[in-house]
């Protein structure tokens, strides 16, 4: 009987052993593997960004940083304190870290410090043996060699936040940064690359015993832009501390060679981290350094719009090249009087002179004749009122007002007076510097409907220039407008003082001064010369659009200086300098450029 009892106990043990070791074995084998094997994702190298000549605009460099795995520390605060003695953590930083640690899961590493110098890093590295949970890491971080000149084009990267869709294994990599603005954001997925994996064995305390397998990730794709970095840097420098924007475009294919917006910020700072002061300064600056003024802000084009009005009138046949209009300085419409910027009038003017001298009366007259519908249609044909897909988000569409728009938005009928105001580029009309450059390029290239392009290749796959169909505008009309623009730079023209004497650099253009605030009758009485006494944000915007050389145009430029004052005095000299520099460098003619950039693509992709 006793034997039977013991036998029963033995059978129970054997049965249990069989259950665990045979029936449930598969599950337990899996659990044992899960215990022992940890998977870690390896950060892929982010794709580099090149200018048209293969010069680096965004790359990666070594980054010494410190991670903390809260789970592995016995006392997070004490560990942070010991770290703080080596890497100088401020109280607010410590508080932010503790807050972050509380919010996320305890096995996820938290980045304590980045961009440490080698000496500090080595010190922490040695000390980390005694500080469980502290992980020194030699990673890679984004670096922008000309971060201040390229920030509005390239954008920046930033840490992953809760809002991101976390479907990419890359998000499991501590300290990973993704594109947050500019092309970095638009092409983020392609630039990211593929995370690699490392399977390694850990013991019960989480210490790594050995690596089992390793699969390297894939380098992100490179991006080759149409920007000429040298020219871009020059333009940013030339705009200096003004609140301004400049766009330079290849008139033949729409390639954007310069896209400068100032004041700028340094893309690297988003990586290095801002001090509270720096950040406040950036956000509170009335010149809005974070806004890309080339395409995210919109302005009334002022007189730079007069070419569109001229073309609308010419194409409609309501004005001829030989017809002249008398400017007395005033234009009557009903009981309202519209003024010319030249108080005493220009006298009799032909169209080309009206453009060259920017006569308002002439354009009131022809605008009234041709009507808002045709002006609006012509404006749209030249690219106004739409966002152009060049790979940058946040583009303003601008506004081309017409009767339909007025009715839809105000429920009112269009007034003829409004047509007159549109005729000199004021009123509800809104444009971006990018649109102005595009308009100028289309005029300069003889009416070919080019499209702006900023990215020429992603990896080895080129983004070809768009087809450039003829816009179907009479060449003689375009010639007439261009002659007017040439006259701008001649004696009597509004930008005569900014002319380039050297025939080789000859340029054509159009000045513009767009009102921010309406001039009241009282002010007009008091005289218009008191502009400089107005508060900065009420001063006029200064604009200039132009192209060069005049014989066979290659480059178009648009410059805008916010609240800068007069177009001829402020914007024209800047545009001239940028155009001159453009022709000096002559980026389009360097046929080698294409070869260089393709070479850059190859060399960077073979690195991975």
């Amino acid at each position: 009987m006793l034997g039977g009892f013991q036998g029963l106990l033995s059978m129970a043990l054997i049965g249990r052993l069989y259950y665990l070791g045979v029936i449930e074995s598969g599950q337990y084998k899996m659990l044992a593997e899960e215990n022992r094997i940890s998977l870690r994702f390896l950060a892929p190298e982010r794709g580099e960004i090149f200018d048209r000549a293969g010069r680096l605009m965004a790359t990666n460099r070594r980054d010494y940083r410190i991670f903390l795995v809260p789970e592995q520390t016995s006392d997070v605060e004490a560990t942070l304190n010991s770290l703080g003695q080596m890497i100088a953590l401020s109280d607010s930083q410590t508080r932010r870290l503790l807050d972050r640690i509380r919010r996320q899961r305890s096995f996820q590493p938290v980045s304590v410090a980045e961009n440490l110098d080698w000496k500090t890093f080595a010190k922490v590295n040695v000390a980390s043996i005694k500080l469980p949970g502290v992980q020194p890491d030699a990673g890679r971080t984004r670096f922008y060699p000309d971060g201040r000149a390229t920030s509005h084009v390239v954008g920046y990267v930033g840490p992953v936040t809760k809002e991101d869709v976390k479907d990419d294994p890359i998000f499991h990599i501590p300290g990973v940064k993704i594109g947050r603005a500019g092309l970095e954001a638009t092409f983020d997925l392609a630039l990211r690359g593929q995370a690699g994996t490392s399977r390694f064995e850990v013991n019960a305390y989480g210490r790594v015993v050995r690596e089992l397998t390793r699969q390297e990730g894939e380098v992100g794709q490179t991006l080759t832009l149409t920007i000429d970095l040298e020219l871009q840097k020059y333009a940013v420098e030339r705009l200096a501390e003004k609140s301004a924007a400049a766009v330079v475009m290849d008139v033949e294919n729409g390639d954007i060679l310069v896209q400068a917006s100032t004041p700028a910020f340094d893309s690297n700072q988003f990586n290095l981290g801002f001090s509270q002061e720096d950040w406040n300064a950036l956000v509170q600056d009335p010149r809005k350094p974070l806004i890309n003024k080339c395409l995210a802000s919109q302005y009334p084009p002022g007189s730079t719009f007069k070419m569109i009005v001229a073309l609308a009138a010419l194409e409609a046949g309501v004005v001829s090249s030989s017809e002249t209009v008398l400017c007395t300085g005033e234009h009557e419409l009903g009981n309202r009087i519209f003024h010319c910027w030249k108080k005493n009038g220009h006298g009799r003017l032909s169209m080309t002179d009206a453009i060259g001298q920017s006569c308002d009366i002439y354009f009131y007259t022809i605008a009234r004749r041709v009507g808002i519908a045709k002006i609006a249609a012509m404006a749209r044909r030249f690219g106004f009122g739409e966002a152009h897909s060049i790979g940058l988000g946040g583009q303003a569409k601008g506004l081309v007002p017409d009767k339909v728009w007025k009715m839809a938005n105000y429920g009112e009928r269009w007034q003829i007076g409004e047509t007159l105001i549109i005729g000199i580029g004021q009123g509800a009309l809104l444009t971006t510097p990018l649109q102005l450059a595009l308009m100028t390029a289309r005029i300069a290239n003889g009416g070919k409907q080019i499209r702006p392009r900023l990215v020429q290749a992603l990896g080895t796959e080129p983004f070809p220039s768009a087809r450039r169909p003829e816009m179907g505008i009479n060449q003689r009309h375009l010639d007439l407008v261009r002659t007017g623009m040439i006259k701008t730079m001649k004696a009597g023209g509004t930008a005569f003082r900014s002319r380039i004497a050297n025939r080789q650099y000859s340029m054509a253009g159009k000045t513009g001064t767009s009102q921010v605030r309406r001039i009241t009758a009282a002010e007009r009485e008091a005289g218009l010369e008191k502009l400089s006494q107005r508060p900065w944000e009420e001063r006029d915007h200064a604009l200039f659009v132009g192209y060069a050389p005049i014989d066979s145009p290659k480059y178009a430029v648009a410059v805008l200086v916010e609240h800068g004052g007069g177009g001829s005095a402020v914007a024209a000299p800047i545009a001239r300098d940028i155009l001159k520099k453009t022709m000096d460098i002559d980026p389009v003619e360097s046929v080698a450029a294409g070869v260089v950039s393709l070479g850059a693509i190859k060399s960077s992709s073979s690195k991975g």
Partner: protein
Amino acid sequence: MGTSLMFGPRRVEQTFLQKLRQLNWLFVLVVCAIAGIGFVVLYSAAGGELDPWASTQMIRFAVGLALMLAIALVDLRYWMVAAYPLFALGLLSLLAVEFFGVSGMGGQRWLELGVVRVQPAEFIKLALVLAMARYFHGLNPPDTLKLRSLAVPIILIILPAALVVRQPDLGTTLMLVLAGVGMIYLSGARVWIFGVGALAAIVSVPIAWRFLRDYQQERILIFFNPESDPLGAGYQIMQSKIALGSGGIFGKGFLQGTQSHLNFLPEMKTDFIFTVLAEEFGMIGGLTLLGLYVVILAYGVYVSLTCRSHFGRLLSIGVAGTLFLYVFINIAMVMGLLPVVGVPLPLVSYGGSSMLTMLVGCGLILSVALHRGLSIPRKNAFG
């Protein structure tokens, strides 16, 4: 404790050499095999090193083996004479633990004796079996059935159990109670008594619960739901089951256990040593060890059945039964069938006191076997 009582037999019917020849060497071999398995597992648990566990264990085994053989050769009657004194000595040493004991691993269990530390709680189990066998041997067969005859055995159980539970050592306390009750059963007491006893035990559970330490309560609660706390106390059972299950039929191979070598297993050199074995040698390894234990049990039963003296019968089956109870509770515990109560695996778990106790027990079985032809009067064997 036993060594001081080693003196030569005064009335020997067999010569020393005769006894040595009659000794069941196959049984000795099985004991060695079990200990050998222990060495192998300890060697593996140390990451393929003799130090620090396997070598120490080997030395202990060598000493214990000599002791076992010596005990086997001692005349059974001496053991009967020594039964009560040994039990008294055991109680005294338990009391000594109470006052001078060394603390360790959540309890006060060790007694420092010069260079060695001993766990009196281990030895008291054998002393209890001896004392019970001695008591029932002295009882007239008709008295065995009387209820009042149970008073002494119950006192014999309660005294050491009360001292051990205070250490606190729940495993040993349970073992003492089970071994004692088993002895009463083997002595021929009526079965209904056990029914009443069991009922009384169930009724007393809520009361006993209040006397348990927090960690003991926790262990029992977790036994019923180990997944409730995978990083805390339930961790042991979970990891143990993972190790056992992942070993499969043939195991992961010698020195290939991941659960053990990467420290996922708790207490792997002591209470959870069976898991290390089963992970590396699989179900085959586990069954082999179990089979060897069954051989010892079977031999104990065989000796008991063929022994002429009541003392010998009770001692042999009592020791073998206790040993098997250890085996069962330990293995059932690591497999998640019983709560983790801290019972070592006989002859395999790392630990000197346990190893010596088991070998002394085997020595007693062998002693009974050598002297099974001896008939000892039920009353006053030595006058």
